[in-house]
């Protein structure tokens, strides 16, 4: 039983820690619960304990599990999907500007992980490669990768070419509809 209520920003006060349990994406600071990440707030109330009605023959400690657990979803599209706005999945496209991190260098190319496309931080990482002839516009033959990048550098680049896509075929009959 979880429902998205609103979107929290990092550092937003969610309530006192005595009444709420911290879930994923939250933290406790000075006995109060704060949001750690940006995302929709979801509150989960544990089901009522089942079993025979309480017999007061035994003294049990107050169960902390009865508190409402507040967590924040990492995927912000969960709440926006409810509003009917579908969030298109962002993938790098040709000519899009990306930010990437150099993972390793070789004499002929630098391998990178694409982390950001345009203004959007990606959920995962895409592998990319910068070849010597793509490092700079002039004197391409004098480019040395180890004089241009080192592992760990953050690089701004544009996409020249997507990974080779195989197994894509347009059925001739379907294609005829578009041409006709």
């Amino acid at each position, binding site marked *: 039983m979880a429902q998205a209520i609103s979107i929290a920003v990092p550092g937003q006060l969610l309530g006192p820690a005595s009444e709420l349990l911290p879930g994923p994406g939250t933290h406790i600071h000075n006995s109060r619960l704060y949001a750690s990440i940006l995302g929709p707030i979801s509150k989960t109330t544990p089901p009522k304990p089942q079993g025979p009605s309480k017999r007061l023959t035994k003294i049990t400690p107050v169960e902390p599990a009865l508190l409402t657990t507040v967590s924040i979803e990492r995927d912000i599209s969960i709440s926006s999907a409810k509003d009917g706005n579908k969030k298109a999945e962002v993938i*790098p496209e040709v000519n899009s*500007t*990306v*930010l*990437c991190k150099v993972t390793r260098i070789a004499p002929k190319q630098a*391998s*990178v992980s*694409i982390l950001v496309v345009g203004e959007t931080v990606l959920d995962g990482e*895409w*592998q*990319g*490669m*910068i*070849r010597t002839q*793509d*490092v*700079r*516009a002039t004197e*391409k033959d004098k480019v040395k990768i180890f*004089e*241009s*990048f*080192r592992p*760990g*550098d*953050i*690089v*701004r*680049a*544009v*996409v*020249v*070419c*997507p*990974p*080779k896509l*195989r197994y894509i075929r347009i059925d001739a009959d379907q294609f005829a509809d578009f041409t006709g």
Partner: protein
Amino acid sequence: MLTNLQISLGDQSNYYLSTASNNLGVIMATSEAGNAMYPVSWKEYKDPETGESESRKVAKPF
């Protein structure tokens, strides 16, 4: 004589990227000593603590 229009064909798993423009290139770099460096020219980053320079393809700041 060959005229080739197609610039490149990506391989199966990698995006091919280019930094062949003034505003493209390294925007954050760490030195061999592990310090964050600042750009001093279009091809050099400098470590503020050791004073060492390292060569990079520096992106022109906006």
